[in-house]
């Protein structure tokens, strides 16, 4: 649920609208009203600071967080390939984002995709503004562009884990650029684009498809995790298993790196979830505490399951559980209450555990680092869980009805909301699953997706990058 500004029209009435939203001030300020009505809203310095800080935190999730998390899990000979892939995806995604990503995601177009009116950031400068979730509260538009840019940077990086140790660098870079354009931007538009709280009443229908259905996704459970998770599954099926999969041991080369990476992900995720409120206020703190406790609960429940089933609690289990918890709480972070978030965390780990241990082995696909089992499955649990936990009857925040001015809390229908959530999950799975399959096919037939068997045996570090991770 991330709004976009639609500034230009309607600014004149904005000051007056702000005052309606704050009746206590209205009388005192009545004399100044005429003057204020003509003024451009001034972004809050606290909000701006928080959004820029959050953007840095989310970038830290990708580099070095995600890169180390994944890198530690592969064999020594492929360490650098994973680090390079994640690092360069971030760079390419950043450039594409300011090129056409921001415009396609966050300008008015049709329910599926935005337009090109802000391609290459035309019309965006240091004075333009982006809407938040509150009437009359604005951010500098650049702050919004930057924050959303970090999401576009990390999401294609998540996919890498599904086919780590057996993908061609050039093919992957081309795939990532195409995937952002054809899959990520449309889904971001469908879920997050809307005209903003001050404009929706006057421009009904100006929003993305899933936003219009009322799907709740606070920080990107569908856009980021389900989206990347299903793309990863499609990728690992199309690229095929690693040479020697199931016959040779392929243990993680450094769980120390994995622990460092997972911890950076956790810390950075506060920017991801609490930052998604776009303002620094009470709901930001709600998202923050939910992100904290759901993660702790999920790490604990994963370890308990391991203790019972395998007899030993493992570090990899603890950090995998933590990531599953972070994924699950992402869509719910600003909607649930802390006790609800704990339950979500406790529930998500056993389900993901079942997928990465039993179901993956039964079906025999080689999702190297469990992108599908953790991100897609965890994301689906989170998306559906959000429909339940957002209910004010369970202490949740409910949702705001922005069709009236000022926005009010809408009447909550849990069953209806859960069905909407399931529909949103279905649209994401289909759009990303089919779109990714087509793109993998195209890349495979052009640049190629899989390195030669010789290169794969030797290790992608030397074969593709001409370096080793460790020289001693």
């Amino acid at each position, binding site marked *: 649920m991330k709004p976009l500004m639609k500034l230009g029209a309607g600014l004149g009435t904005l000051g007056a609208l702000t005052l309606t939203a704050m009746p206590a001030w209205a009388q005192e300020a009545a004399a100044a009203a005429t003057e204020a009505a003509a003024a451009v809203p001034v972004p809050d310095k606290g909000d701006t600071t928080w959004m820029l800080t959050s953007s840095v935190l989310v970038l830290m999730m990708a580099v070095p967080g995600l890169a180390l998390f994944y890198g530690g899990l592969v064999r020594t000979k492929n360490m650098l390939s994973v680090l390079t892939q994640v690092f360069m995806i971030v760079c390419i995604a950043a450039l594409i984002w300011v090129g056409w990503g921001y415009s396609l995601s966050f300008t008015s177009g049709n329910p599926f995709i935005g337009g090109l009116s802000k391609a290459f950031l035309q019309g965006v400068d240091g004075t333009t503004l982006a809407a938040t979730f509150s009437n009359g509260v604005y951010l500098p538009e650049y702050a919004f562009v930057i924050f959303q840019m970090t999401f576009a940077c990390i999401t294609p990086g998540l996919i890498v884990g599904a086919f780590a140790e057996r993908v061609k660098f050039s093919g992957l870079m081309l795939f990532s650029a195409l995937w952002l354009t054809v899959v990520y931007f449309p889904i971001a538009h469908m879920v997050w684009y809307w005209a903003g709280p001050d404009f929706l009443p006057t421009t009904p229908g100006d929003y993305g498809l899933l936003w219009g259905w009322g799907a709740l996704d606070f920080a990107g459970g569908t856009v980021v995790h389900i989206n990347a998770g299903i793309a990863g599954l499609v990728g690992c099926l199309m690229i095929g298993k690693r040479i020697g999969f199931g016959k040779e041991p392929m243990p993680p080369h450094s769980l120390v790196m994995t622990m460092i990476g997972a911890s950076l992900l956790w810390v950075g995720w506060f920017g991801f979830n609490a930052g998604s409120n776009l303002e620094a206020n009470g709901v930001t703190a709600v998202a923050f505490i939910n992100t904290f406790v759901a993660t702790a609960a999920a790490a604990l429940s994963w370890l308990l399951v391991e203790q019972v089933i395998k007899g030993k609690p493992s570090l990899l289990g603890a950090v995998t559980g933590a990531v599953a918890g972070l994924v699950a709480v992402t869509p719910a972070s600003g909607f649930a209450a802390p006790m609800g978030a704990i339950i979500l965390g406790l529930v998500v780990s056993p389900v993901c555990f079942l997928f*990465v241990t039993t179901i993956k082995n039964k079906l025999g696909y080689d999702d190297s680092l469990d992108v599908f089992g953790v991100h897609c499955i965890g994301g689906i649990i989170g998306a559906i869980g959000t429909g339940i936990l957002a209910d004010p009857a369970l202490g949740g925040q409910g949702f705001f009805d922005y069709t009236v001015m000022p926005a009010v809390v809408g009447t909550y229908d849990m069953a209806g909301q859960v069905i909407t959530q399931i529909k949103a999950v279905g649209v994401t799975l289909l759009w990303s699953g089919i779109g990714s399959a087509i793109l993998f096919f195209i890349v495979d037939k052009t640049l190629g997706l899989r390195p030669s068997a010789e290169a794969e045996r030797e290790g992608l570090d030397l074969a593709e990058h001409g370096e080793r991770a460790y020289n001693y």
Partner: protein
Amino acid sequence: MKLVIAIIKPFKLDEVRDALSGLGVAGMTVTEVKGFGRQKGQTEIYRGAEYSTNMVPKIKIEVVTTNDLADRVVETIQQSANTGAIGDGKIFVLDVGQAVRIRTGETDETAL
């Protein structure tokens, strides 16, 4: 002269070294090795993937000694490396034909 080769548990190295020094053994060569015997390997589980490592890390000690000291060297290693548990290792004794100290050119027992 005899070459005594002992495969022992890594954490027993210091004890064995001290015990042999006490006997007057003036040098040894130590190598980190992997192998298996009755101890078999261990199982490692990473998320769902189970790997049985069938090689166990050990330390290999090589000591060349005079014929009359050889039995006591073997006995000392056997006692100092012993834990009583499976996987304590093995000792092999071989005959040595010749020995030369590179610095001085001394040969055989004077080279030890």
